[in-house]
């Protein structure tokens, strides 16, 4: 990982390079398809994410955004096509992937400190208990503590990492979870709707943090999002899933009327507000009936912001 720079020094995003870039891709899909419960969610998806790129996976509810993440993790086999992750089959290199599942947040009464949650990301999957007393133990513990402190500083959570995580706000919890995902120096960071349930200032701050992680630390970042606007300034690429297919490209190439109209097969307009926010208008609503965990979300949260 590149030398540590504080987020505050690097909030300005670097100029987005052309996308997809050449070079060895961290994630590569060729004609990939996903079937869940006998229903094809998407097919013919081509995607290539290189090191240090920040890519958003967008689209309406129930199109299989989370399934795409699970396919990359090897938790959901691809129904067709080829998927390669970090030079191998999905699931082979998961120790080099930091993953943030979609979640509701920690129980308010959970009495475990934020720093402990980050530490679990480092060695929580190890069996047994290290025996204290040996020099090797002391050295390892110091190295682990230093790494945890370093990554907590990177996400700007030093001020509250020693408080019980259940008592922290959603934005503070999200920063600590990003630290947990980063603590093992992954090559790829996968986040499933991390901006969900955050207020607007926190959405912007977490988006800036992720942009910094990608562009300054060289970690490829893929984020599932409902609303592209907080991310827009930092993104290198976009995958827009809808109607069983996908368009990929730079944000400008994908989030425009003609591209989305082709994808949806019906006229769609992308409006730009005076403050630079994009609003997708005319996109057909997703099928009213689908057995999906997104279904319980209030409909107001879906609209007006894509």
């Amino acid at each position, binding site marked *: 990982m590149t030398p540590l720079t504080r987020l505050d020094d690097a909030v300005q995003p670097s100029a987005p390079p052309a996308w997809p870039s050449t070079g060895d891709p961290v994630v590569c899909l060729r004609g990939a398809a996903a079937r869940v419960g006998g229903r094809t969610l998407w097919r013919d998806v081509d995607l290539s994410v290189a090191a240090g790129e920040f890519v958003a996976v967008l689209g309406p509810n129930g199109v299989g955004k989370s399934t795409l993440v699970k396919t990359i993790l090897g938790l959901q086999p691809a129904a067709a096509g080829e998927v390669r992750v970090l030079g191998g089959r999905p699931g082979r290199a*998961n120790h080099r992937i930091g*993953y943030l*599942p979609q979640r509701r947040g920690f129980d308010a009464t959970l009495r*475990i400190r934020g720093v*402990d949650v980050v530490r679990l990301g480092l060695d929580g*999957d*190890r069996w047994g208990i290290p025996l204290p007393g040996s020099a090797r133990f002391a050295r390892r513990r110091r190295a682990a503590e230093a790494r945890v402190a370093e990554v907590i500083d990177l996400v700007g959570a030093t001020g509250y990492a020693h408080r019980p995580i259940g008592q922290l*706000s959603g934005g503070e919890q999200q920063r600590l979870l990003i630290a947990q995902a980063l603590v093992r120096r992954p090559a790829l960071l996968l986040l499933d709707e991390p901006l969900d349930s955050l207020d607007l200032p926190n959405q912007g701050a977490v988006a800036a943090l992720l942009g910094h992680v990608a562009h300054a630390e060289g970690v490829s970042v893929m984020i599932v999002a409902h609303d592209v606007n907080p991310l827009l300034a930092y993104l290198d690429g976009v995958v827009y899933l809808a109607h069983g297919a996908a368009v990929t490209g730079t944000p400008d190439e994908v989030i425009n009327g003609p591209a989305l109209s082709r994808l949806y097969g019906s006229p769609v307009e992308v409006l730009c507000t005076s403050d630079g926010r994009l609003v997708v208008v005319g996109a057909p609503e997703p099928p009213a009936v689908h057995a999906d965990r997104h279904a319980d979300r209030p409909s107001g949260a879906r609209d007006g912001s894509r």
Partner: protein
Amino acid sequence: MVPGEPGPSWNPIIDLQLLWSFPFMVNAFRAGTIVAVLAGLIGWFMVLRRQSFAGHTVAVAGFPGAAGATLLGVAPVFGYFGFCLAAAAVIAALPRGRDAGYREESAVTGTVNAFALACGYLFIALYKGFLGGVNALLFGNFLGITDDDVLALLAVAVVALAVLAAVGRPLLFASVDPDVAAARGVPVRALSVVFLMLLGAAVAEASQITGTLLVFALLVMPAATAQRLTARPVASLALTVLIGIVATWLGLGIAYFSPYPIGFCVTTVAFAGYLLAHAARAGRFGLPRPRLAGGAT
């Protein structure tokens, strides 16, 4: 307290010397200490995993086990272990909702709970003249613990704690953050089964001291008190064990010198500790907690 015997001198050393001059009290202290350590550590994870209801059901299942063993003329200890472990296995086999996490186990657990209690009642009704023993099964007893009982408790506790030490870190990860732990390759589901079996063993041990209905005195109260006081996992675990041992020893002492039963004494000491921990935190941070302007994000 038996009339004619000396009361407490209020000097802890002299009182302990007096208590330990009786072999049955020595065995009660040994058994109580073993149980306090095991139940405290397993209970700490149970509280963290929000599985107290499962723990209660496993404990209630021990009641028909012990009553049935008595009915058949077998030592109750076999009934406790057999039924507690079987109940834990049943709960482990229950299907769990995909996103249910570690919230309360389903209504099936409650159904098993009621049926187990009813079976225990049946066995007592079938065993005539057993009525004096019902209180001991439900609310605990520290008389008549033999050297062999202590050895059996120790052997089970050593095995259970060795397993807990081996799976401790992944279990903590899976308890706090099951989704991320699963993505990291931690066998969350298998760990849940292993933990329930450990819980069954700890509950069966604790039942023999505190009785079926008061196992939470050693299973929940020390852990809940310690988690109130600190959010550091290692300190919290150590504090849990300390509180459990103090509650057991004080409870045994009070039970010896007073006419009150052991289960009440241990539970009351542990409950007093819990109240003190709440009071201490309230005193430290002020009541109600002041909101810092602009501090919350």
